[in-house]
């Protein structure tokens, strides 16, 4: 189990240090700083073993969060906890920065005491935590006994993530499908690897204890229905629209037994924002952009680069925040760029040409050409030609996932599925989207 948790700033100074077990000494704090934060190598393993002690770390902007243990723990559990910890802190005081952490250190220690007990992770649901860990320290005294016992029963009860007696005048529901698409493509346009990792994030403002049911175009469900039903056209449509999900994980509120038996996703939602599910697909991915590179070496001192990008989605949709990053050789001494659309600039500090386009519609094409001057060097090594990478945001799900329904049932209060206002949004972002040149 986790023996201790430390938070460092970028210099390696300790901001928060909470030790849960005796086997973690003060020197562990320094060991991590010396061996990881101040390590000379660029690439750091998220798990480091120093003197029989394991350090698991995540980095948020300039802040390092490190969990320490001497035992053989489940690394996935530790990382899950660290991510949850980040979520909780963000929910309480916004961006995780040195200043915010310093300003809220009392709160953080309080949170740490609550979500980690003797190194064992406890309830880390923000909604539940907020009922009894508040930023107004005095509130606790004003709570009545009744309220306190209610909190206790809720936190320790079966549905720890939702309290009773929530009331909204307007029952509203927001559903975001956020996907990031990862790609590695050969210069000839052959897909070497591609996958989408997606999340379904919900914001629910519903009264009472509603029972929700979520449906999407999962291939297994559609096929089952197709079999169960009689018509062939469902099968036909499913062949086109259903997607194969490789693996998925759910929020703790989802009834897994029901998912296992019927593959239906039913749950009592927490109040506020939460991540309902995470999934990954590798088949039939819609690649929103295609990058066509052309690199020509003219003698030893010149390089000509031409890159064409093509958008590959419905013309009515608009992609945003497009950025193409073309790496330049290490001995570049000057760059001239011409582009038809957007702005392009040579960034010496990153050894790359960065081309930015604000907006681009589907089924369009744009081009950039650059002349790179090189300085002859003694070094005989050839330039390794790193891949061209791309960033963008598109208003659809590249995996093809569609939300089919989200039904809300509340038997005690008298509002029905129709009274709930539902909003659905799809956002596809680029993960690591690279094309070799």
């Amino acid at each position, binding site marked *: 189990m986790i023996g201790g948790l430390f938070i460092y700033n970028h210099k390696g100074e300790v901001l928060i240090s909470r030790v849960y077990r005796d086997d973690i000494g003060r020197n562990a704090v320094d060991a991590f700083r010396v061996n990881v934060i101040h390590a000379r190598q660029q690439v750091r393993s998220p798990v480091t073993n120093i003197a029989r002690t394991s350090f698991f770390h995540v980095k948020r902007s300039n802040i390092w969060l490190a969990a320490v243990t001497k035992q053989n723990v489940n690394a996935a559990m530790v990382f899950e906890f660290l991510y949850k910890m980040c979520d909780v802190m963000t929910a309480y005081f916004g961006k995780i920065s040195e200043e915010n952490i310093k300003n809220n250190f009392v709160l953080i220690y309080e949170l740490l005491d609550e979500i980690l007990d003797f190194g064992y992770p406890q309830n880390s649901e923000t909604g539940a935590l907020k009922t009894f860990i508040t930023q107004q320290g005095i509130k606790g005294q004003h709570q009545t006994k009744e309220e306190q016992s209610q909190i206790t029963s809720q936190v320790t009860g079966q549905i720890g993530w939702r309290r009773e007696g929530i009331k909204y005048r307007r029952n509203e529901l927001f559903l975001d499908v956020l996907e990031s698409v990862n790609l590695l493509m050969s210069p000839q346009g052959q897909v070497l690897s591609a996958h989408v990792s997606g999340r379904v994030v919900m914001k629910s403002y519903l009264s009472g204890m509603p029972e929700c049911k979520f449906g999407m175009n999962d291939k297994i469900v559609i096929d089952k229905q197709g079999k169960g039903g009689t018509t062939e056209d469902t099968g036909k449509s499913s062949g086109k629209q259903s997607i194969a999900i490789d693996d998925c994980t759910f929020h703790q509120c989802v009834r897994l037994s029901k998912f296992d038996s019927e593959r239906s996703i039913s749950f009592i939602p927490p109040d506020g924002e939460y991540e309902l599910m995470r999934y990954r697909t590798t088949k039939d991915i819609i690649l929103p952009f295609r990058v066509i590179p052309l690199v020509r070496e003219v003698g030893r001192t010149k390089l000509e680069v031409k890159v064409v990008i093509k958008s590959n989605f419905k013309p009515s949709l608009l992609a945003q925040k497009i950025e193409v990053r073309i790496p330049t050789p290490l001995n570049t001494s*000057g760059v001239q760029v011409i582009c038809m659309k957007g702005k392009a600039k040579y960034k010496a500090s990153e050894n790359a040409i960065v081309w930015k386009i604000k907006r681009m519609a589907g089924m369009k094409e744009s081009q950039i050409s650059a002349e790179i*001057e090189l300085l*002859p060097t003694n070094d005989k090594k050839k330039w390794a030609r790193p891949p061209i990478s791309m960033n963008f945001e598109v208003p659809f799900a590249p995996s093809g996932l569609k939300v089919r329904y989200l039904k809300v049932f509340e038997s005690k209060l008298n509002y029905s599925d129709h009274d709930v206002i539902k909003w659905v949004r799809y956002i596809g972002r680029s993960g690591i989207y690279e094309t070799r040149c």
Partner: protein
Amino acid sequence: MPAVSKGDGMRGLAVFISDIRNCKSKEAEIKRINKELANIRSKFKGDKALDGYSKKKYVCKLLFIFLLGHDIDFGHMEAVNLLSSNKYTEKQIGYLFISVLVNSNSELIRLINNAIKNDLSSRNPTFMCLALHCIANVGSREMAEAFASEIPRILVAGDTMDSVKQSAALCLLRLYKTSPDLVLMGEWTSRVVHLLNDQHMGVVTAAISLITCLSQKNPDEFKTCVSLAVSRLSRIVSSASTDLQDYTYYFVPAPWLSCKLLRLLQCYPPPEDGAVKGRLVECLETILNKAQEPPKSKKVQHSNAKNAILFEAISLIIHYDSEPNLLVRACNQLGQFLQHRETNLRYLALESMCTLASSEFSHEAVKTHIETVINALKTERDVSVRQRAADLLYAMCDRSNAKQIVAEMLSYLETADYSIREEMVLKVAILAEKYAVDYSWYVDTILNLIRIAGDYVSEEVWYRVIQIVINRDDVQGYAAKTVFEALQAPACHENMVKVGGYILGEFGNLIAGDPRSSPLVQFNLLHSKFHLCSVPTRALLLSAYIKFINLFPETKATIQEVLRCDSQIRNSDVELQQRAVEYLKLSSIASTDVLATVLEEMPPFPERESSILAKLKKKKGPGTVSVTDLEDSKREGGELNGGGERGPDTAAMASSNASTPSPSADLLGIRSAAPVGAAPASAGSLLVDVFSEAGPAAPSAAVNDDGFLRDLEQPTATCDSLLVEGSGDSDSAPPSEDPAPPLPEADELLNKFVCKNNGVLFENQLLQIGIKSEYRQNLGRMYLFYGNKTSVQFASFTTTVSYPGELQSQLNVQTKPVEPLVEGGAQIQQVLNIECLTDFSDAPLLNIKFRYGGALQNLTLKLPVTINKFFQPTEMTSHDFFQRWKQLSQPQQEAQKIFKANHGMDTEVLKAKLLGLGSALLDDVDPNPENYVCAGVIQTKGQQVGCLLRLEPNSQAQMYRLTLRCSKDSVSKRLCELLAEQF
């Protein structure tokens, strides 16, 4: 160095460095550096020429980036350009970049060398210095090749500035150290030596480093420097502290130069010229006198400088070792330091005194400080100082103070650091032995030693006690009494049990008169320790028990009971089990006379160098135990213990199994493979005579150095058969060269090589023997590779080939002798030429003997030479084959065997084996394609023997029928036997 003018401030560089320092993360730093690199690249690429200032600035930035750990692959050309600048700062940065970044194989080296040459020939001293510094900093062979001839000229030229001379001298030193063959002084020698007379002290200091280094390589050429150095030294020493101005350091005149002069003088013997010598002695006296003067300053630098000169002078005095007066004074001076509050000084004093103690003149003087040193050993806080104190005590020990020193070291041992305990133990053991006047004292000391630091007492130490006790009959009674008392302690170290077991087994009778130590009490005492001991010790104790039976017949019943119990006679350890069985039988069968002869008291050991001393030498490396020490020990050790390391050592050797080096020492020296009395040869042969009618010629009882050992092992075969199997055939008793009997697995090993010529013949923990062989007609050549698998060298490594039975006349094997030493991890090769005279059936024996860690290893293998090796394949048609087959139809010409398959009946494997046999494998001969048919001719010197072979496998029954027909009946029989094992 000229001051940097304001315009050379290089603001850009300062800004860049402060930017880097302010970076919050590694990533930010890399970004900043990338940006700067791009900027510099564009500047260097730019068409318009850069001025010297910006060039310098950018080169500086590149240097800074490089020193941060990033690769720099451009800018070299610009740096080389800077070299030709006339401005000091630009030139300096250029040289800096070159010496840090340019590697020797760069193509720019020609340009650089050219620039350096120009600077060297310029008249500007700063430029010359810069060039010299660059040469020295790079210091590569290429630099030496280019400039080694140029620099001595600069060094001795009359018009060279002093500062340049200093740089030149040090530069030359550096080149000399990297490539001494290129720096040839020759004609310059005398002029370089005369630099010692230079007016400028800096030049002298630089030159003396060079001269010291050169004169260490060829002392004769630089002999003249001695008198110059002496006069220089006397001028410095006698000068007042104010005379030398710049070269006075905290009131000490030129301390560095003085130290270097004294060190230079240590390269040479004392000067022969009386005047020079007188002057030198005077100098040394002055230095010693000055040490007595009150310090001129309280500063630590003052005393450090003064002491540095003093210690260097003392080492010179020790080096000369010819001035009793000075030696004694030095010793007294060091004596004062022994109580100084500065730890470093105490350490140095102890260290120097160690060397002083070995000089005959100052030995007595050193001895006067014994109390202080003992005190240091007890109270010093630093372990390294304590270690030095212990060294000094060891060095100053002689007959007069041995008792005191040994007692002190013993008492210190109880609290000593673990790191130095083992060494201390060895030292105590050596001193106790070396200066023992009274042997009871010696025995007491060593037993004490074992009691206090049993874990650190090595085998050698207790072997040595036993050797001495056995060789001196006046101490035996006392020793028995003492060990008996020591064993009564509730917790005894195992080494103590070993000594006790050995000594009581030998001399228990001497104290048996006392009712408190009656035989039964002795036995019970020993046996109470038995179960707490390791196997080798138990083995030793068992031997002690059988000796008890001999010494005290009244204990016989008790001991036999012990031997008979299951834990002995069925012990899982082979060695223990065998001993128990054999001793039990021996005690019940043999008459008392026989017992008394077999278990006679150990004879005295011959003289030998103390094994402990050898161990200490090995531990400390050569040089630390001085020669006088050695001679002493030989002289004194020899006269007083007429005993060498024969006893337990040899017993251990004899007892260690031929193949496993288990160091089980043993009273009787019984080998697990072949037990034999370790009593001298006469006893051994007697044993043979008594038990065996078919005894071989009694082994000669010659007692020469290692003949003893061989004698010990000689009657192996007979005794083996006697004691283990009752009476056996003693025909196979090996000849007098006496190798061990072949290993039981030798036959199996032999079979492995019937169908193949190369491979690993034998392997155990110590040794691996590989084999490679080729045969043509009746001749063969075999390469044997002996690999030492341990890290210890094998000594007296010998191999011999012998021919059992009639083989002598059948086979001729010529061997070349191997080197007697096989280093740890090394492999040696031996070539054997083999000639087949006539057909044969036995295999020659290869006997290997060597010493591993003192224990003799004896190993006998069968050489994989079988008759089939001399096959010549013969191709023939089916018709021919069957014709010949019918010709060889006499019953004795045919050998047939039907046997079960030992291995799978895979066709390919079978074919490979038959091909490996050496004969031709004939296809389409036998009507049944399942069968294999081979034909070949065995070539011997006398005749050729034709052989035909049929192998009929029956895969259902997993059986083979093998039929051989040869023109000579013995051949078919032998081949049939050999082949039957293969399939």
